[in-house]
């Protein structure tokens, strides 16, 4: 059952993309900014997890939690220091600032610890199960279950809590939300915190699954997660999850067919096709510019 095996690998990869894509999509939905630094928050999460496990002997879940907390704080810090001033700036200025923040995080990390990769400690049992002839590792199951739990929590926050309602209101219309007494600044910060925490979790999961992390590891998954977000329809939370899964599976299939060096191109080709033929994504609605 070669195909089932690939499908499972694809979904594992896809759930990492999905976790990162959630942060992209939430932030874009609320302030229309492509937060290029998001992939780097993911990288920081991976490193926090690494230090927590190998230096401070924490278990997987405490390390995951710690990475999420640190990344949430980092996300809010970035938003408050850099992006907050850009609310009324041009889109180009905002995007360039985001690129700047991304480079700053990457190279500050390299400055302090060098560019060399780090081998992730093995904290999850490497037991495998046989399922319909496919090898399923404990890690795959864990990745998937952690991702699903986090996504359910997110869904709960967005739809059942007061802050979730505020987030939806702000993403719909900032000014109207402000007039209704919603604290827009705090809502945006919370959005960054949640999105960044998810990216941090994705970082730890990535480390456990792929066992190698380095300071520039966030760039490619970051861009791909953005592709996933666009694919699902940017600003739409279930869309990000679906987009991440589709992308993960497609990439795995491309590799399995023996084109692994074209794997990255596959993501970009999907991106371009989606942008050209259905820019609102799978779940999005078309919007038009007002004249």
């Amino acid at each position, binding site marked *: 059952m070669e195909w089932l095996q690939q499908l499972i690998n694809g979904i594992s990869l896809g759930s990492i993309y999905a976790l990162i894509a959630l942060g992209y999509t939430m932030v874009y939905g609320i302030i*229309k900014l*492509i937060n290029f630094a998001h992939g780097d928050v993911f990288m920081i999460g991976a490193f926090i997890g690494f230090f927590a496990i190998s230096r401070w002997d924490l278990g997987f879940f405490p390390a995951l939690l710690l990475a999420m907390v640190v990344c949430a704080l980092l996300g809010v810090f970035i938003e408050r220091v*850099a992006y907050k*001033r*850009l609310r009324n*700036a*041009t*889109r*180009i*200025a*905002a*995007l*360039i*600032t985001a*690129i*700047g*923040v*991304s*480079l*700053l995080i*990457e*190279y*500050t990390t*390299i*400055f302090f610890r060098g560019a060399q990769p780090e081998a992730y400690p093995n904290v999850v049992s490497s037991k495998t199960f046989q399922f319909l002839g496919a090898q399923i590792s404990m890690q795959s199951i864990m990745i998937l279950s952690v991702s699903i739990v986090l996504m359910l929590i997110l869904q709960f926050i967005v739809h059942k809590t007061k802050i979730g309602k505020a987030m939806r209101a702000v993403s719909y219309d900032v000014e109207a939300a402000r007039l209704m007494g919603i604290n827009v600044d705090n809502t945006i910060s919370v959005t960054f915190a949640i999105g960044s925490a998810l990216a941090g979790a994705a970082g730890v999961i990535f480390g456990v699954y792929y066992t190698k992390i380095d300071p520039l590891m966030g*760039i490619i998954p970051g*861009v791909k997660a*953005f*592709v996933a977000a*666009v694919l699902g329809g940017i600003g739409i939370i279930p869309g990000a999850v679906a987009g991440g899964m589709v992308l993960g599976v497609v990439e795995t299939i491309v590799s399995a067919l023996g084109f692994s*060096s*074209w794997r*990255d*191109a596959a993501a*970009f*080709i999907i*991106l*371009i096709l989606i*942008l*050209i033929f259905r*820019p609102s994504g799978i779940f999005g609605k078309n919007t038009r*510019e007002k*004249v």
Partner: protein
Amino acid sequence: MKKSKIFWIYIAVALVVYAIVELLIVNGQLDMYYSNLFITIAINIILAVSLHLVIGITGQFSIGHAGFLAVGAYISAIFTTNLGFPFPVALIIGAIVAAVAGLIVGIPTLRLKGDYLAIATLGFAEIIRIIFLNIDYVGGAAGMQVDYLTTWTYAFFGVLITIIVIANFTNSRHGRACIAVREDEIAADAMGINTTYYKVLAFAIGSFFAGLAGGLFAHNFFIIQPSQFGFLKSFDILIYVVLGGLGSLSGAVIAAILLTVISLYLQDFPETRMIIYSLVLIIVMLYRPSGLMGTKEITDFFKFNKKAKGGKVNE
């Protein structure tokens, strides 16, 4: 007539600069290190000015310029090293192929706007890079051996031609059409401007000169590798344009010179260089988003009489 006189003065000044540098190189006062610096500055100016046409003039936010640099680099290198063509011919072929690549990328993507266009161009640039990575004929990831052929003379005249062509284009009805697209696409369309045509045209011209820069770039090293043409290279070029001031050709030139010199001095500390780069980028965007020059040109500072001239017409 007065305008053309000023034009020739600039040309004369440029040629004097060229002659002095060439003389110093020939006499050996400028060693390899410095002649290489001048060539690198020239290549970066070409890149900056070509992207300026796309972003600064036409307002199309492309962050995949390194893709066209790569096309020019590889194509020209194939024509000199593998096929034995003369260097100038290979440079032109590289530029033309890059322009064609620009058309292929531009026609589908330029209907997108803002962020989406940016991401699509970035995606295309990566696809171009991955294509070269997968072609064994050009050495794949290991790279391709290239003859060292770029001289200060080629680099200088490359810059001169780029600036003249792009400045002349900008100061014509075609350039105004591009600026109108930047300012308000819907209004430009309503005034009879074929906006798609001008976006694609500007993109193709920009790609042409990025390809020219690619040819000079490839033959200024002994080897080219796909990894030299990634996001970071695109961002480098973007930074020149943004820092110089979106819409200012001279701003792009000044920023390219400054940043090339700064990064040369910091080349032994690559992380520090990137940290400074990114901080400068963030601070400029937060406190002076219009860049060093805004949309002004350096010549505007010498043209106080222009307003007076304009005023006279209605007297």
